[in-house]
C-alpha cells in the first residue's frame, strides 16, 4: 500500500514548515502547487460541479472505479487552486471509507485556517464537506 492519508498530511506539514511562516513565500508555494494540479476536463466544469465560495469558485468532480475514488478539481483563482491541489493530493485514489474517515488536520498545523476558517471567501471549507459527501455516497456502492 502506498502512502496513507496521514503520511501525506505529515509530508505537507513538513514542506510548509520550511517556509518559516513567511506569508509571501507560503502564498507563492501554494500557487506553484496549483500549477501542478492535473488539468480538469472543461466538460466537467458544470454548474452542478461548482462548490461556491463568496469570492472564488471551485469545481469538484468524483468518479468511482474499482472501489477507488478519483477526484478532479479546479478553481478560478490561483491561490485557491493551490489549496485545492493539496486536498486532491490527499484524497485522490482512496476508498470511500478512507474518505469518510478523513480528518484534515494538516490545515491547522500549517496555519492555513485563515484561508479556510471563518472567511466565507474561497469555498475550500465547502469543498472538504463535498469530498466527504462523495465518500459517503460512494460507500453505499462498494
Amino acid at each position, binding site marked *: 500500500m502506498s502512502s496513507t492519508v496521514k503520511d501525506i498530511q505529515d509530508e505537507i506539514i513538513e514542506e510548509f514548515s520550511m517556509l518559516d511562516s513567511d*506569508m*509571501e513565500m507560503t502564498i507563492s508555494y501554494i500557487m506553484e502547487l496549483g500549477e501542478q494540479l492535473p488539468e480538469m476536463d472543461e466538460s466537467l466544469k458544470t454548474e452542478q460541479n461548482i462548490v461556491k465560495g463568496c469570492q472564488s469558485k471551485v469545481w469538484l468532480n468524483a468518479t468511482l472505479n474499482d472501489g477507488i475514488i478519483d477526484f478532479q478539481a479546479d478553481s478560478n483563482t490561483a491561490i485557491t487552486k493551490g489549496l485545492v491541489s493539496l486536498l486532491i493530493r490527499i484524497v485522490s485514489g482512496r476508498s470511500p471509507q478512507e474518505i469518510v474517515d478523513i480528518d484534515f488536520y494538516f490545515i491547522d498545523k500549517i496555519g492555513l485556517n485563515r484561508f479556510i476558517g471563518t472567511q466565507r471567501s474561497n469555498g475550500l471549507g465547502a469543498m472538504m464537506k463535498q469530498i466527504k459527501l462523495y465518500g459517503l455516497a460512494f460507500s453505499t456502492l462498494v
Partner: protein
Amino acid sequence: MATLEKHKIDIDKVRAEFPILDQKVNGKQLVYFDNAATNQKPQRVIDALVHHYQTDNANIHRGIHTLAERSTTAFEETRKVIQVFINANEAEEIIFTKGTSESINLVASSWGRKFLNTGDEVIISALEHHSNIVPWQMICEERGAVLKVMPINEKGEIILEKVDELLSEKTKMVALNHASNSLGTINPVKEIIKKAHAAGAKVLIDGAQATSHLPVDVQDLDADFYAFSAHKMYGPTGLGVLYGKRILLEKMPPYQGGGEMIKEVSFEKTTYNDIPYKFEAGTPDIANVIAFKEAIHFINELGKANIAAYEDGLLTYATARLKEIDSVRLIGEAANKVGVISFEVEGIHHFDLGMWMDAKGVAVRTGHHCTQPLMDFYCIEGTVRASFSVYNTLEEVDIFISALKSIIERFNK
C-alpha cells in the same frame, strides 16, 4: 514623491491618535486601505469607552441615581452633537440604531407598511449596497409595490434624465446613497431630492460613505430620511443613526416593541412614547453612543473641508499611479468621488490580489462589496477596492502601488 496641498492636516499628529496603525502584519508595516468597510478609531474614542465603563456605567433614562443621571446626560449629549453635525432641526429627529442597514430597514418596514400600497413605486439606484436594495424588495413584495432602478452610465454616475422618466405620481419613495461604497461616486442627492419631491415622493439617503468625507446638511438637502453608521466615521461598531423629519417620524408606527418605546402598558393597550424613543426599543448601545461623540469631535476639529481636500489628494495621486499600470482597469470613474478606488487587474483574480496584498501588509477589500447588481452592470464578479481615510499618506499609496506592481510581475513570470 508627490505632496499634498490645499489642506491643513498635520498628518503626524493625526496618525499619533490611531494606535492601531503602528503595527506590522505578516512582517510588514500595516497599510490600512479598507476604510470604506470600517475605519480606525482614534484614542479619544477608545478612552471614552473605557472611561464610561470605569466611572459612569448605568442604564439610562429611568434611573434616579447619580450614575444613571451621568450616563443619560452623556448619551443625550451625543444626540445633540449629531443634530448639529448634520444640521437637523431638532435633536428628537435623531434616532439611534444598530447601523445604516437597520436605519433603512426601520424606514422600509415602519414607513413602508403604513404608506406603501399596491401599485405604488419605490425607486433606488443601480449603485446601491444590498442594504438599500433588499429592505425595499421585501417591503415592496409585502405591499404589492414595484421596485424600479435609476440607471448609471459607464463612469458609474446616475443618469439624471432617466430619473425624470422614472418619477411619476406612483413614486412614493426614492432611496439612494450619497456616495457609492463600491465606486466612490458622489451622487447629486440634492437635485434628485428636489425632483422626487416635485413628484410627491419621499427620499431616503444612505449616507454611510458620506458622513466622514462630505458636508451633510439634512435641511439644506431637504432629505426626508438620512441613514449612517458610526463605525465608518471613526466611531464604534454596532451603532448607527437614522435622521427623519419629525412630521414623518410621528406618523410612523413603532418598528420594534419593548422597553423605552412605551408610555403606558396594560394587557389591553399600549400607548407609545414620543420620538425618538418610540423607535428605540430596549436598552440602547449606551457606551458606544457616548464614545461616538468623540469621533464627531475628531472630525469637527480637523474640519470636513480639510478632510475632503486631504483625501482628494490621496485619491487623485492613487488614481494617477494606478493608471500607470497597463493591466489595471479602473471600475467607476465618476467626476465626483469620495476616496474610494475600485479596479481589476487583467489576468489576476481579485481574491488572489487581495491575499497577496495582505501578505505585503496592505489591507484592501476584494469581492462584490455587497453590490452584486452593480458588478453585473460592469460584467465582473468583483473588484479590488482601496479606500482612504484622513490618516492615510502618499507614502502608503506608494507602498500599495509597488506591492501591486510586484504581484503583477509574479503572475506574469
